[in-house]
């Protein structure tokens, strides 16, 4: 049996204009990395077609449970300022837990 260790996965769907802001949060909060996928969709403010000026991104960050709150706090702050973010957290299991404790350097 392969050993599995619990981690948290934060997924964020938002406008591509916020990408830099999010990356800054991840860097400041010391996540081990992040992954971005181009996306489109629809929500409270109509359709977002994916064209350059109207594109979404789907962002994924895996991090230890004890580092979850600082990131969520920052995301709440963005929400408080009026930004639209669809944020959801899932429980995942990983095979290399130590990987997610080392901050990425960029």
């Amino acid at each position, binding site marked *: 049996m392969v050993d599995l260790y619990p981690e948290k996965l934060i997924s964020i769907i938002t406008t591509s204009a916020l990408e830099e802001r999010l990356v800054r949060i991840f860097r400041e909060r010391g996540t081990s990395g992040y992954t971005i996928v181009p996306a489109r969709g629809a929500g409270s403010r*109509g359709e977002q*077609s994916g064209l350059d*000026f*109207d594109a979404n991104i789907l962002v994924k960050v895996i991090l230890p449970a004890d580092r979850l709150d600082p990131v969520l706090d920052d995301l709440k702050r963005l929400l*408080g*300022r009026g930004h*639209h973010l669809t944020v959801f957290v899932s429980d995942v299991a990983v095979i290399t837990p130590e990987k997610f404790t080392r901050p990425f350097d960029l």
Partner: protein
Amino acid sequence: MLSNLMIPAVLFFGLGVLARLVKSDLKFPPDLAKALSIYLLMAIGLHGGVELAKADLGAAINAIIWALILGFAMPVLGYWLLIVTRRVSPLDAAAIAAHYGSVSAGTFLTAIAFLDTQGVVYETYPLIMLAVMESPAIIVGLLLAAQARQKVKLQAGGNGAAAMANGNGHGNGHGNGEDKIRLGALLHEAFTNGSVVILVGSMAIGAMSLPGSMDKLKPFIDEIFMGALCLFLFEMGMEAARRLGDFKRVGALLAGYGVVMPLIGGTIGVLIGHYALGFGVGGTTLVAVLAASASYIAVPPAMRLAVPEANPSLYLTLSLGITFPFNVVLGIPLYHWMASALAGTGP
């Protein structure tokens, strides 16, 4: 005047609108539109740069000054109009106004295609104005939004403070400190905006390059330009029609704003082009197009960042769904007609 509608570029725009109206499954890859707009800005920039190398410095500076005036004045005017008619919240008004102070390169290029087809010559200075006008409106939009926030806060009183507190203690981010940080970021954003970099950069390269080395670029700039513009407008026609559907959401009065603003802007532009800048019919038409058109590429992401409280479907519907088609189909020939009339009676 109807002959405008018979230009391939305009017809492809119409085909795009039609494709969406009949609910065709036609879709362009999102990156194609982006690639085309990079190409178009690069080509027009290089072209302009070559011309500008031969231009008169005084006239260029004059054009830049008037571009700045237009870029700062139009959004203030637009904001005031929206506030007076009370159709939208102050923050929405600020974001919408910013779009009208900036410009639509797609409309500008269509105007050039129109003038070319009519055999009308035009000055190159409006091209510098295009580059200059991308940015100031973003800054004005931010300043208006800061003011609007102040107003909202005063109106809301303790109420608003409570709502802010909700934001986990960080919510009081709209204070002056925050705004200063954001102004810096915005100024940066305004001047290093992707469209500005391509346009200004290509103009500089066009002006600096050795003449011989530009020859090799000529076919790329000239020969496929019209085709690329047609493809771009085809795609933009689909996007505009997608937004047109949001018409009802916006409401008739606000939709009317999307037609009135370009009429006002176009009139102001014609007057500036003719009297202040002394351009011929072609150049005057282009200045009118600059003043009349609303950005839908550079400004929306900037407003998403800077005025997140504003509703993007309002400003995108107005700029892309109403003003853009209006200008492409009716505005351009109208401004040309106005410019011609003025030239006929002018000095």
